[in-house]
Protein backbone atom coordinates (compact mmCIF):
# COMPACT_ATOMS: atom_id res chain seq x y z
CA UNK A 1 0.00 0.00 0.00
CA UNK A 2 1.34 3.39 -0.98
CA UNK A 3 0.45 6.27 1.31
CA UNK A 4 -0.23 9.60 -0.39
CA UNK A 5 0.23 12.24 2.30
CA UNK A 6 -2.84 14.33 2.94
CA UNK A 7 -1.83 17.62 4.51
CA UNK A 8 -4.58 19.72 2.97
CA UNK A 9 -2.18 20.89 0.25
CA UNK A 10 -4.49 21.19 -2.69
CA UNK A 11 -5.50 18.56 -5.17
CA UNK A 12 -4.07 15.18 -4.19
CA UNK A 13 -6.47 13.16 -6.23
CA UNK A 14 -4.44 13.51 -9.43
CA UNK A 15 -1.64 11.49 -7.87
CA UNK A 16 -4.04 8.84 -6.60
CA UNK A 17 -5.71 8.59 -10.00
CA UNK A 18 -2.37 8.07 -11.71
CA UNK A 19 -1.41 5.34 -9.24
CA UNK A 20 -4.87 3.74 -9.62
CA UNK A 21 -4.44 3.80 -13.38
CA UNK A 22 -1.05 2.09 -13.01
CA UNK A 23 -2.61 -0.54 -10.78
CA UNK A 24 -0.79 0.20 -7.51
CA UNK A 25 -2.97 0.24 -4.38
CA UNK A 26 -2.74 3.57 -2.62
CA UNK A 27 -4.51 5.63 0.00
CA UNK A 28 -4.72 9.35 0.65
CA UNK A 29 -4.15 9.65 4.38
CA UNK A 30 -2.66 11.66 7.23
CA UNK A 31 -3.09 8.92 9.81
CA UNK A 32 0.29 8.19 11.37
CA UNK A 33 -0.65 4.53 11.88
CA UNK A 34 -1.61 4.04 8.26
CA UNK A 35 1.46 5.85 6.97
CA UNK A 36 3.81 3.85 9.13
CA UNK A 37 2.33 0.64 7.73
CA UNK A 38 2.77 1.76 4.12
CA UNK A 39 5.41 0.31 1.79
CA UNK A 40 6.12 3.67 0.22
CA UNK A 41 5.08 7.27 0.62
CA UNK A 42 4.24 9.90 -1.98
CA UNK A 43 4.54 13.43 -0.68
CA UNK A 44 2.65 15.62 -3.18
CA UNK A 45 2.21 19.38 -3.02
CA UNK A 46 0.50 22.27 -4.67
CA UNK A 47 0.48 25.79 -3.29
CA UNK A 48 2.90 27.60 -1.06
CA UNK A 49 5.75 26.46 1.17
CA UNK A 50 4.63 28.47 4.19
CA UNK A 51 1.12 27.09 4.30
CA UNK A 52 2.36 23.57 3.59
CA UNK A 53 4.86 23.62 6.49
CA UNK A 54 2.13 24.93 8.75
CA UNK A 55 -0.22 22.09 7.82
CA UNK A 56 2.53 19.49 8.14
CA UNK A 57 3.30 20.80 11.61
CA UNK A 58 -0.31 20.75 12.72
CA UNK A 59 -0.65 17.14 11.65
CA UNK A 60 2.70 16.04 13.06
CA UNK A 61 3.70 14.96 9.56
CA UNK A 62 6.93 16.97 9.72
CA UNK A 63 8.39 14.69 12.39
CA UNK A 64 6.82 11.67 10.72
CA UNK A 65 8.59 12.42 7.43
CA UNK A 66 11.92 12.46 9.26
CA UNK A 67 11.11 9.08 10.80
CA UNK A 68 10.16 7.63 7.42
CA UNK A 69 13.37 8.96 5.88
CA UNK A 70 15.49 7.46 8.65
CA UNK A 71 13.58 4.19 8.41
CA UNK A 72 14.66 3.94 4.74
CA UNK A 73 11.12 3.89 3.42
CA UNK A 74 11.01 4.91 -0.28
CA UNK A 75 9.67 8.45 -0.47
CA UNK A 76 8.71 10.46 -3.60
CA UNK A 77 8.32 14.21 -3.18
CA UNK A 78 6.46 16.25 -5.83
CA UNK A 79 6.61 20.03 -6.38
CA UNK A 80 6.11 21.67 -2.96
CA UNK A 81 6.77 18.15 -1.61
CA UNK A 82 10.31 18.56 -2.99
CA UNK A 83 10.78 22.12 -1.80
CA UNK A 84 9.91 21.64 1.86
CA UNK A 85 12.52 18.88 2.16
CA UNK A 86 15.24 21.55 2.14
CA UNK A 87 16.43 23.82 4.97
CA UNK A 88 14.46 26.86 3.99
CA UNK A 89 12.42 28.48 1.22
CA UNK A 90 12.44 32.10 0.19
CA UNK A 91 8.68 31.74 -0.28
CA UNK A 92 7.19 33.32 2.84
CA UNK A 93 10.74 32.97 4.31
CA UNK A 94 9.75 29.51 5.45
CA UNK A 95 11.84 27.25 7.62
CA UNK A 96 11.43 23.79 6.10
CA UNK A 97 12.13 20.21 7.09
CA UNK A 98 15.91 20.30 6.63
CA UNK A 99 16.17 16.70 5.38
CA UNK A 100 18.17 17.98 2.41
CA UNK A 101 20.73 20.77 2.91
CA UNK A 102 20.11 23.75 0.70
CA UNK A 103 17.46 26.34 0.04
CA UNK A 104 14.61 27.14 -2.31
CA UNK A 105 14.83 30.36 -4.30
CA UNK A 106 12.53 32.42 -6.47
CA UNK A 107 13.35 32.63 -10.18
CA UNK A 108 15.21 35.89 -10.86
CA UNK A 109 13.04 38.74 -12.10
CA UNK A 110 13.59 39.90 -15.65
CA UNK A 111 14.98 36.68 -17.08
CA UNK A 112 14.80 36.80 -20.84
CA UNK A 113 14.33 34.19 -23.52
CA UNK A 114 16.62 33.79 -26.53
CA UNK A 115 14.39 36.14 -28.52
CA UNK A 116 14.57 38.83 -25.87
CA UNK A 117 11.07 38.47 -24.41
CA UNK A 118 10.68 38.42 -20.64
CA UNK A 119 10.20 34.94 -19.27
CA UNK A 120 6.92 34.61 -17.41
CA UNK A 121 6.67 33.57 -13.79
CA UNK A 122 5.42 31.00 -12.78
CA UNK A 123 7.37 28.61 -14.97
CA UNK A 124 4.27 26.95 -16.35
CA UNK A 125 4.13 24.26 -19.00
CA UNK A 126 6.23 21.50 -20.51
CA UNK A 127 10.01 21.52 -20.24
CA UNK A 128 12.75 18.95 -20.67
CA UNK A 129 14.54 17.27 -17.78
CA UNK A 130 17.98 15.79 -18.34
CA UNK A 131 18.52 13.03 -15.87
CA UNK A 132 22.09 12.59 -14.69
CA UNK A 133 22.64 8.95 -13.89
CA UNK A 134 21.00 5.54 -13.91
CA UNK A 135 18.71 5.99 -10.97
CA UNK A 136 16.05 3.24 -10.91
CA UNK A 137 13.22 5.78 -10.62
CA UNK A 138 14.25 7.44 -13.90
CA UNK A 139 14.87 4.23 -15.84
CA UNK A 140 13.43 3.90 -19.31
CA UNK A 141 12.43 7.53 -19.69
CA UNK A 142 13.51 8.65 -23.18
CA UNK A 143 16.13 11.40 -23.26
CA UNK A 144 14.60 14.81 -23.88
CA UNK A 145 11.23 13.85 -22.37
CA UNK A 146 9.28 16.85 -21.20
CA UNK A 147 7.38 17.11 -17.97
CA UNK A 148 4.76 19.53 -16.70
CA UNK A 149 5.99 22.29 -14.39
CA UNK A 150 4.12 24.99 -12.52
CA UNK A 151 6.20 26.84 -9.96
CA UNK A 152 7.84 30.15 -9.14
CA UNK A 153 10.52 28.79 -6.80
CA UNK A 154 13.23 26.23 -7.48
CA UNK A 155 15.56 24.15 -5.27
CA UNK A 156 19.23 24.97 -4.81
CA UNK A 157 20.82 21.94 -3.10
CA UNK A 158 23.92 22.62 -1.01
CA UNK A 159 25.38 19.33 -2.24
CA UNK A 160 25.45 18.98 -6.05
CA UNK A 161 25.72 15.18 -5.72
CA UNK A 162 22.04 14.88 -4.92
CA UNK A 163 20.99 16.57 -8.16
CA UNK A 164 19.46 13.86 -10.35
CA UNK A 165 17.86 16.01 -13.05
CA UNK A 166 18.24 19.50 -14.47
CA UNK A 167 16.02 21.84 -16.47
CA UNK A 168 16.59 25.10 -18.29
CA UNK A 169 14.36 28.12 -17.81
CA UNK A 170 16.42 31.29 -18.04
CA UNK A 171 18.78 29.58 -15.64
CA UNK A 172 19.67 25.92 -15.36
CA UNK A 173 18.17 24.57 -12.16
CA UNK A 174 17.89 21.30 -10.32
CA UNK A 175 14.53 19.77 -11.17
CA UNK A 176 15.02 16.35 -9.59
CA UNK A 177 16.99 15.13 -6.58
CA UNK A 178 17.85 11.69 -5.25
CA UNK A 179 19.35 10.87 -1.88
CA UNK A 180 19.26 7.41 -0.30
CA UNK A 181 15.60 6.36 -0.09
CA UNK A 182 14.34 9.76 -1.19
CA UNK A 183 13.53 10.95 -4.72
CA UNK A 184 11.91 14.29 -5.30
CA UNK A 185 10.93 16.19 -8.44
CA UNK A 186 9.89 19.78 -9.09
CA UNK A 187 7.54 18.81 -11.93
CA UNK A 188 4.25 16.89 -11.75
CA UNK A 189 4.72 13.31 -12.99
CA UNK A 190 0.98 12.68 -12.53
CA UNK A 191 0.31 15.39 -15.12
CA UNK A 192 3.13 14.63 -17.54
CA UNK A 193 1.59 11.96 -19.76
CA UNK A 194 3.63 8.87 -20.57
CA UNK A 195 7.04 9.82 -19.17
CA UNK A 196 5.40 10.88 -15.92
CA UNK A 197 3.48 7.65 -15.62
CA UNK A 198 6.70 5.74 -16.30
CA UNK A 199 8.43 7.60 -13.46
CA UNK A 200 5.57 6.82 -11.08
CA UNK A 201 5.57 3.19 -12.19
CA UNK A 202 9.33 2.97 -11.53
CA UNK A 203 8.89 4.50 -8.08
CA UNK A 204 6.16 2.04 -7.21
CA UNK A 205 8.55 -0.82 -7.91
CA UNK A 206 11.59 0.75 -6.22
CA UNK A 207 13.00 -0.73 -3.04
CA UNK A 208 14.51 2.53 -1.84
CA UNK A 209 18.12 1.73 -2.67
CA UNK A 210 19.94 4.08 -5.08
Amino acid at each position, binding site marked *: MIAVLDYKAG*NLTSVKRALDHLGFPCKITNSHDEILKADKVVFPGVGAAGKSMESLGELGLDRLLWRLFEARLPILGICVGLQVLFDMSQENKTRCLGILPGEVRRFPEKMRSGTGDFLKI*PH*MGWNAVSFGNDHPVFQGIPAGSEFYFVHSYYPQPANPDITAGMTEYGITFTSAVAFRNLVAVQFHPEKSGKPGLRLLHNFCLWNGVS
Partner: protein
Amino acid sequence: MLSKRIIPCLDVRDGKTTKGIKFKDNIDIGDPVAMGRYYYEQGADEIVFYDITASSERRPIMLDVVRRVAETIFIPFSVGGGIRTLEDMRDVLLAGAEKVSVNSAAVLNPDIIRQGAEAFGNQCIVLGMDVKKVAVSDKIPSGYEMVINGGRTYMGIDALWWAREAERLGAGEICLNSIDADGTKTGYELELTRLISTSVRIPVIASGGAGEPQHLLDVLNQGCADAALIASMVHYGTYTIEEIKNFLSRNGVKVRSSW
Protein backbone atom coordinates in the same frame (compact mmCIF):
# COMPACT_ATOMS: atom_id res chain seq x y z
CA MET B 1 13.53 25.71 -22.57
CA LEU B 2 9.81 25.89 -21.99
CA SER B 3 7.68 24.71 -24.88
CA LYS B 4 4.76 26.67 -26.25
CA ARG B 5 1.50 24.88 -25.43
CA ILE B 6 -1.15 23.74 -27.91
CA ILE B 7 -4.51 23.46 -26.19
CA PRO B 8 -7.70 22.06 -27.74
CA CYS B 9 -10.89 23.53 -26.34
CA LEU B 10 -14.10 21.49 -26.08
CA ASP B 11 -17.54 23.00 -25.55
CA VAL B 12 -19.75 20.75 -23.46
CA ARG B 13 -23.53 21.07 -23.25
CA ASP B 14 -25.54 18.82 -20.96
CA GLY B 15 -22.50 16.56 -20.66
CA LYS B 16 -21.95 16.18 -24.38
CA THR B 17 -19.37 17.78 -26.62
CA THR B 18 -21.03 19.90 -29.25
CA LYS B 19 -18.67 20.17 -32.19
CA GLY B 20 -16.85 17.81 -34.44
CA ILE B 21 -17.09 15.15 -37.10
CA LYS B 22 -16.46 11.48 -36.82
CA PHE B 23 -12.78 10.64 -36.74
CA LYS B 24 -11.46 7.57 -38.45
CA ASP B 25 -10.97 5.77 -35.16
CA ASN B 26 -14.70 6.05 -34.58
CA ILE B 27 -14.49 8.12 -31.43
CA ASP B 28 -17.85 9.16 -30.09
CA ILE B 29 -17.57 12.84 -30.82
CA GLY B 30 -20.37 13.58 -28.38
CA ASP B 31 -18.44 12.12 -25.45
CA PRO B 32 -16.16 14.68 -23.80
CA VAL B 33 -14.20 11.99 -22.00
CA ALA B 34 -13.49 10.12 -25.24
CA MET B 35 -12.64 13.37 -27.00
CA GLY B 36 -10.36 14.41 -24.15
CA ARG B 37 -8.63 11.06 -24.29
CA TYR B 38 -8.27 11.33 -28.05
CA TYR B 39 -6.58 14.72 -27.86
CA TYR B 40 -4.40 13.56 -24.96
CA GLU B 41 -3.14 10.67 -27.07
CA GLN B 42 -2.73 12.97 -30.05
CA GLY B 43 -0.25 15.19 -28.22
CA ALA B 44 -2.33 18.00 -26.74
CA ASP B 45 -0.39 19.78 -24.00
CA GLU B 46 -3.49 20.68 -22.00
CA ILE B 47 -7.23 20.60 -22.60
CA VAL B 48 -9.91 23.18 -21.86
CA PHE B 49 -13.55 22.23 -21.29
CA TYR B 50 -16.18 24.95 -21.45
CA ASP B 51 -19.54 24.14 -19.96
CA ILE B 52 -22.08 25.89 -22.17
CA THR B 53 -25.10 24.19 -20.62
CA ALA B 54 -27.90 26.68 -20.21
CA SER B 55 -29.90 24.94 -17.54
CA SER B 56 -29.59 25.53 -13.83
CA GLU B 57 -28.98 21.82 -13.27
CA ARG B 58 -25.66 22.06 -15.06
CA ARG B 59 -23.33 21.53 -12.16
CA PRO B 60 -23.70 17.80 -11.33
CA ILE B 61 -23.57 16.85 -15.02
CA MET B 62 -20.35 18.76 -15.59
CA LEU B 63 -18.72 17.52 -12.38
CA ASP B 64 -19.36 13.98 -13.52
CA VAL B 65 -17.61 14.78 -16.80
CA VAL B 66 -14.69 16.31 -14.90
CA ARG B 67 -14.31 13.25 -12.67
CA ARG B 68 -14.31 10.88 -15.61
CA VAL B 69 -11.86 13.01 -17.60
CA ALA B 70 -9.51 13.10 -14.60
CA GLU B 71 -9.49 9.30 -14.47
CA THR B 72 -8.60 9.06 -18.13
CA ILE B 73 -6.08 11.72 -19.03
CA PHE B 74 -2.79 12.55 -17.35
CA ILE B 75 -2.13 16.06 -18.62
CA PRO B 76 -3.49 19.24 -17.06
CA PHE B 77 -7.00 20.33 -17.96
CA SER B 78 -9.07 23.33 -17.01
CA VAL B 79 -12.79 23.92 -16.78
CA GLY B 80 -14.76 27.09 -17.37
CA GLY B 81 -18.30 28.20 -18.00
CA GLY B 82 -20.63 29.41 -15.28
CA ILE B 83 -17.99 29.38 -12.54
CA ARG B 84 -19.16 32.09 -10.18
CA THR B 85 -18.36 31.25 -6.58
CA LEU B 86 -15.65 29.74 -4.44
CA GLU B 87 -17.86 26.64 -4.06
CA ASP B 88 -18.08 26.27 -7.85
CA MET B 89 -14.27 26.43 -8.00
CA ARG B 90 -13.79 23.99 -5.15
CA ASP B 91 -16.21 21.47 -6.64
CA VAL B 92 -14.45 21.52 -10.01
CA LEU B 93 -10.94 21.32 -8.55
CA LEU B 94 -11.84 18.51 -6.18
CA ALA B 95 -13.44 16.64 -9.07
CA GLY B 96 -10.00 16.62 -10.65
CA ALA B 97 -9.41 19.69 -12.82
CA GLU B 98 -6.06 21.48 -12.46
CA LYS B 99 -7.47 24.93 -13.13
CA VAL B 100 -10.74 26.79 -13.20
CA SER B 101 -11.49 29.62 -15.53
CA VAL B 102 -13.59 32.62 -14.54
CA ASN B 103 -14.79 35.21 -17.02
CA SER B 104 -17.93 37.31 -16.59
CA ALA B 105 -18.16 36.42 -12.90
CA ALA B 106 -14.76 38.06 -12.39
CA VAL B 107 -15.69 41.16 -14.38
CA LEU B 108 -18.79 41.58 -12.23
CA ASN B 109 -17.05 40.58 -8.99
CA PRO B 110 -13.25 40.94 -9.28
CA ASP B 111 -12.72 39.82 -5.71
CA ILE B 112 -13.56 36.25 -6.75
CA ILE B 113 -10.10 36.11 -8.35
CA ARG B 114 -8.41 37.04 -5.09
CA GLN B 115 -10.55 34.65 -3.08
CA GLY B 116 -9.90 31.79 -5.49
CA ALA B 117 -6.14 32.46 -5.59
CA GLU B 118 -5.95 32.56 -1.80
CA ALA B 119 -8.00 29.44 -1.31
CA PHE B 120 -6.52 27.27 -4.05
CA GLY B 121 -3.33 28.95 -5.25
CA ASN B 122 -2.76 31.39 -8.13
CA GLN B 123 -1.86 28.60 -10.53
CA CYS B 124 -5.40 27.22 -10.30
CA ILE B 125 -7.11 30.45 -11.38
CA VAL B 126 -7.32 31.33 -15.07
CA LEU B 127 -8.90 34.60 -16.10
CA GLY B 128 -10.92 34.21 -19.26
CA MET B 129 -11.23 37.49 -21.15
CA ASP B 130 -13.62 38.22 -24.04
CA VAL B 131 -12.44 41.33 -25.83
CA LYS B 132 -13.61 43.53 -28.70
CA LYS B 133 -11.72 46.18 -30.60
CA VAL B 134 -13.32 49.64 -30.23
CA ALA B 135 -12.43 53.26 -30.87
CA VAL B 136 -9.73 54.60 -28.56
CA SER B 137 -11.26 56.86 -25.92
CA ASP B 138 -10.50 58.20 -22.47
CA LYS B 139 -12.42 55.30 -20.98
CA ILE B 140 -10.83 52.69 -23.27
CA PRO B 141 -7.31 54.01 -23.94
CA SER B 142 -6.03 50.71 -25.36
CA GLY B 143 -8.79 50.49 -27.94
CA TYR B 144 -9.84 47.10 -26.59
CA GLU B 145 -12.93 46.74 -24.44
CA MET B 146 -14.08 43.96 -22.13
CA VAL B 147 -17.34 42.29 -23.15
CA ILE B 148 -19.51 39.56 -21.63
CA ASN B 149 -22.55 37.54 -22.72
CA GLY B 150 -20.81 36.24 -25.79
CA GLY B 151 -19.78 39.70 -26.87
CA ARG B 152 -23.21 41.29 -26.58
CA THR B 153 -22.65 43.40 -23.48
CA TYR B 154 -19.94 46.04 -23.44
CA MET B 155 -18.61 46.60 -19.94
CA GLY B 156 -16.93 50.01 -20.33
CA ILE B 157 -13.71 48.43 -18.99
CA ASP B 158 -10.36 48.68 -20.74
CA ALA B 159 -9.00 45.18 -21.49
CA LEU B 160 -5.37 46.07 -20.75
CA TRP B 161 -6.31 47.63 -17.43
CA TRP B 162 -8.40 44.59 -16.57
CA ALA B 163 -5.61 42.11 -17.42
CA ARG B 164 -3.19 43.95 -15.12
CA GLU B 165 -5.80 44.23 -12.40
CA ALA B 166 -6.53 40.51 -12.57
CA GLU B 167 -2.82 39.74 -12.33
CA ARG B 168 -2.61 41.98 -9.26
CA LEU B 169 -5.56 40.16 -7.71
CA GLY B 170 -3.83 36.81 -8.16
CA ALA B 171 -4.84 35.26 -11.48
CA GLY B 172 -2.21 32.72 -12.49
CA GLU B 173 -2.87 32.80 -16.21
CA ILE B 174 -4.97 34.63 -18.79
CA CYS B 175 -6.97 33.05 -21.60
CA LEU B 176 -7.47 35.91 -24.00
CA ASN B 177 -10.32 35.53 -26.47
CA SER B 178 -10.88 37.99 -29.28
CA ILE B 179 -14.61 38.11 -30.03
CA ASP B 180 -13.79 39.78 -33.35
CA ALA B 181 -11.57 36.91 -34.47
CA ASP B 182 -13.53 34.07 -32.88
CA GLY B 183 -15.03 31.72 -35.47
CA THR B 184 -13.49 33.54 -38.46
CA LYS B 185 -10.62 31.07 -38.99
CA THR B 186 -8.60 33.95 -40.41
CA GLY B 187 -6.14 34.16 -37.56
CA TYR B 188 -5.84 35.29 -33.97
CA GLU B 189 -5.97 38.97 -32.98
CA LEU B 190 -2.22 39.52 -32.98
CA GLU B 191 -2.08 43.13 -31.84
CA LEU B 192 -4.33 42.49 -28.86
CA THR B 193 -2.46 39.34 -27.87
CA ARG B 194 0.91 41.02 -28.06
CA LEU B 195 -0.35 44.00 -26.06
CA ILE B 196 -1.67 41.88 -23.21
CA SER B 197 1.10 39.30 -23.21
CA THR B 198 3.88 41.87 -23.01
CA SER B 199 2.08 43.85 -20.31
CA VAL B 200 1.63 41.12 -17.72
CA ARG B 201 4.13 38.68 -16.19
CA ILE B 202 1.74 35.73 -16.11
CA PRO B 203 1.28 33.32 -19.03
CA VAL B 204 -1.21 34.25 -21.76
CA ILE B 205 -3.13 31.74 -23.87
CA ALA B 206 -4.30 33.15 -27.20
CA SER B 207 -7.84 32.27 -28.22
CA GLY B 208 -10.15 32.98 -31.14
CA GLY B 209 -9.60 32.80 -34.89
CA ALA B 210 -7.30 29.85 -35.54
CA GLY B 211 -7.85 28.25 -38.96
CA GLU B 212 -4.44 26.97 -39.98
CA PRO B 213 -1.02 26.26 -38.45
CA GLN B 214 0.36 29.57 -39.76
CA HIS B 215 -2.03 31.36 -37.41
CA LEU B 216 -0.50 29.63 -34.42
CA LEU B 217 2.99 30.46 -35.64
CA ASP B 218 1.99 34.11 -35.91
CA VAL B 219 0.37 34.35 -32.48
CA LEU B 220 3.15 32.47 -30.70
CA ASN B 221 5.82 34.66 -32.35
CA GLN B 222 4.47 38.11 -33.16
CA GLY B 223 1.63 37.80 -30.70
CA CYS B 224 4.06 36.74 -27.94
CA ALA B 225 1.54 34.22 -26.63
CA ASP B 226 2.71 31.41 -24.35
CA ALA B 227 0.05 29.03 -25.59
CA ALA B 228 -2.64 28.77 -28.26
CA LEU B 229 -6.20 27.53 -27.94
CA ILE B 230 -7.61 25.66 -30.93
CA ALA B 231 -11.07 24.32 -31.62
CA SER B 232 -12.66 23.83 -35.04
CA MET B 233 -9.22 23.38 -36.64
CA VAL B 234 -8.94 20.01 -34.94
CA HIS B 235 -12.56 19.15 -34.13
CA TYR B 236 -13.40 18.83 -37.83
CA GLY B 237 -10.28 16.83 -38.61
CA THR B 238 -8.78 19.57 -40.78
CA TYR B 239 -5.47 19.30 -38.98
CA THR B 240 -4.07 16.95 -36.38
CA ILE B 241 -2.14 18.20 -33.38
CA GLU B 242 0.90 16.39 -34.72
CA GLU B 243 0.69 18.26 -38.04
CA ILE B 244 0.36 21.57 -36.22
CA LYS B 245 3.31 20.82 -33.94
CA ASN B 246 5.48 19.62 -36.83
CA PHE B 247 4.76 22.83 -38.70
CA LEU B 248 5.61 24.94 -35.68
CA SER B 249 8.78 22.97 -35.02
CA ARG B 250 9.98 23.33 -38.61
CA ASN B 251 9.46 27.06 -38.23
CA GLY B 252 11.56 27.36 -35.12
CA VAL B 253 8.93 27.25 -32.37
CA LYS B 254 9.75 25.05 -29.40
CA VAL B 255 6.89 22.60 -28.85
CA ARG B 256 6.62 19.28 -27.01
CA SER B 257 7.28 16.79 -29.76
CA SER B 258 6.97 13.40 -28.13
CA TRP B 259 4.13 12.02 -26.07
